[in-house]
């Protein structure tokens, strides 16, 4: 009978991404609730040393899939390697981060394993052995509580949501032979943006601009720089060509959950609210006191963003010394 919990981690360029610790911590909580063990899986090339980074977060066992063929994420190679391990371990539950890679991998894994997948979950509860996952649908306009039939139950957790908790224990590390299967895809090139800019879905703080910027994002960018934040945009700002598509927060853009979301000159169309409603604290700055964004915000400021934002940036700089 399927038992145990597996957390699949994600690394990039030899560093575990933050969501990996979130997935392992959530995996530990589920394993404790089920009274079972947790196995963490690391996949990549030359990634053996990463096992040491995970031990503090509570896996009983760490499986390292170390193969040159896993250097770059390729759906087919990763699906084969990870599904091979899962077939051996036969877990009851698999947790991973719902990142770009995690969404792609989990979707293919679910079909390969004929397993149910709860995508992009913002909460997982476990009562009497039954796991209920909460996942936003319709871009967060509704929350669904879902239960997965059969095993393994695949749970992809939204980045930036699950708490990271230390639970040190001595984990056994295994490095089994890796099977890649028939790999038909090839990574030809990586075109990464320079400067290690904060990625929206991983950022702790996001400053977003909308139509109210009139296309001038300078005050938004300045505040973001002062807060070490990522810059987001509403759909109308993207449609106007002021920002690129990758910056769009909303139902047809990125769904984000930062600790702090500052919406500047954004009226608050349902489209946009859908993409940021799970942010922990929302600040709205708009010249229109009736803008719908204020009904979704924790803190509101009515006024001219071109006057207020530079003052906020100065105040943040002063605070940070």
């Amino acid at each position, binding site marked *: 009978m399927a038992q145990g919990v597996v957390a699949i981690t994600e690394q990039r360029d030899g560093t575990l991404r933050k969501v990996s610790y979130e997935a392992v911590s959530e995996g530990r909580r589920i394993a404790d609730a089920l009274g079972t063990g947790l196995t963490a899986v690391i996949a990549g090339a030359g990634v053996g040393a990463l096992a040491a980074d995970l031990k503090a977060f509570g896996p009983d066992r760490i499986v390292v899939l170390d193969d040159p063929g896993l250097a*770059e994420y390729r*759906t087919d190679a990763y699906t084969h390697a990870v599904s091979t391990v899962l077939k051996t371990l036969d877990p009851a539950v698999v947790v991973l981060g*719902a*990142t*770009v890679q995690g*969404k*792609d991998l*989990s*979707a*293919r894994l*679910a*079909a390969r394993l004929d397993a*149910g*997948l709860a995508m992009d979950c913002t909460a997982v509860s476990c009562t009497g052995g039954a796991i209920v996952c909460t996942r936003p*649908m*319709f*871009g967060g*306009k*509704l929350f669904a*509580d*879902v*239960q*997965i*039939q*059969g095993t393994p139950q695949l749970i992809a957790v939204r980045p930036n949501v699950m708490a990271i908790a230390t639970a040190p224990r001595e984990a056994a590390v295994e490095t089994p032979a890796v099977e890649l299967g028939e790999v038909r*895809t*090839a990574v*030809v090139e*990586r*075109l*990464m*943006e320079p400067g290690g800019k904060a*990625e929206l879905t991983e950022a702790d*703080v996001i400053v977003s601009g909308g139509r109210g910027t009139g296309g001038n994002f300078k005050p938004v960018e300045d505040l973001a720089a002062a807060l070490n934040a990522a810059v987001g945009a509403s759909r109308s700002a*993207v449609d106007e060509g002021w920002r690129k*598509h*990758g910056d769009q927060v909303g139902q*047809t853009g990125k*769904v984000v959950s930062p*600790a*702090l979301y500052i919406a500047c000159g954004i009226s608050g*169309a*349902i*489209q946009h609210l859908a993409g940021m409603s*799970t942010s922990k*604290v929302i*600040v*709205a700055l708009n010249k229109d006191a009736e803008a719908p964004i*204020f009904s979704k*915000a*924790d803190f509101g*400021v009515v*006024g001219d963003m071109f006057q*207020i934002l*530079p*003052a*906020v940036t100065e*105040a*943040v700089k002063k*605070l940070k010394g």
Partner: protein
Amino acid sequence: MDIVVLVKQVPDTESLVQIAADGVSVKKDEIKWVMNPYDELAVEEALRIREAKGGTVTIVSVGAQKAQETVRTALAMGADKGLLVNDPKAEGSDALGTARILAAAVKSLPCDLVIAGQRAVDEDNYQVGAAVAELLGIPHVSLVVKAEVLEGKVRCHRSVEGGTVVVEAPLPMLFTTQRGLNEPRYASLPGIMKAKKKPLEIKTAADFGVDAARIGVAGRRVVVKALRLPPQRKTVRMITGETPEALAAELVRVLHEDARLI
């Protein structure tokens, strides 16, 4: 080149979505139904590839009778023919169930390339494209912002956190669309007129040999126990001040001292 595009009819993103009396589904009336925005990109990309390379574009969808409108919209944009699987047994399928039906339907068609939206903006599952590819036994690339069809393969620019990765996969393959891929055309009036005469077949899941036990509500692996509204935030706290500087100082103070965020 024979291209199949998977489309879904979804509520417009500006519509208010309400929970139905059963507590586990949404009210279907009073909603403006549209083509999933990511599927519009898929239709547009297929048309562009056909314009460059020749071939056919076939639209495949699973949905209610009403979903014919969405297939028709794709035909009006310029697709050649449509196939809608409309089957009460398929209603309420989860992502894997839907993928099972779509994969079986695609298998019945001549097909070199499948294009799908990266996700449907109703259930936000991000699963169907990848699952269809898996069930068809072909490679897939997700979140594509640029696709170049080369000799026997497709070079895809895949959008990832912090940049783009260029991935090649041999045909037949499937890719899913991301915003930035193209700007979908509107259906022209002559296009709409022509679409009325284009073939649109309506089939059942059984027509493709899909096991009824593995689709629909009965076949769900992901069972919805309850739908609810997202937790409401406390009433907004308005920051006041006489000058921009005073407002800014007060905002930074509350974020620092009260919310402990900066």
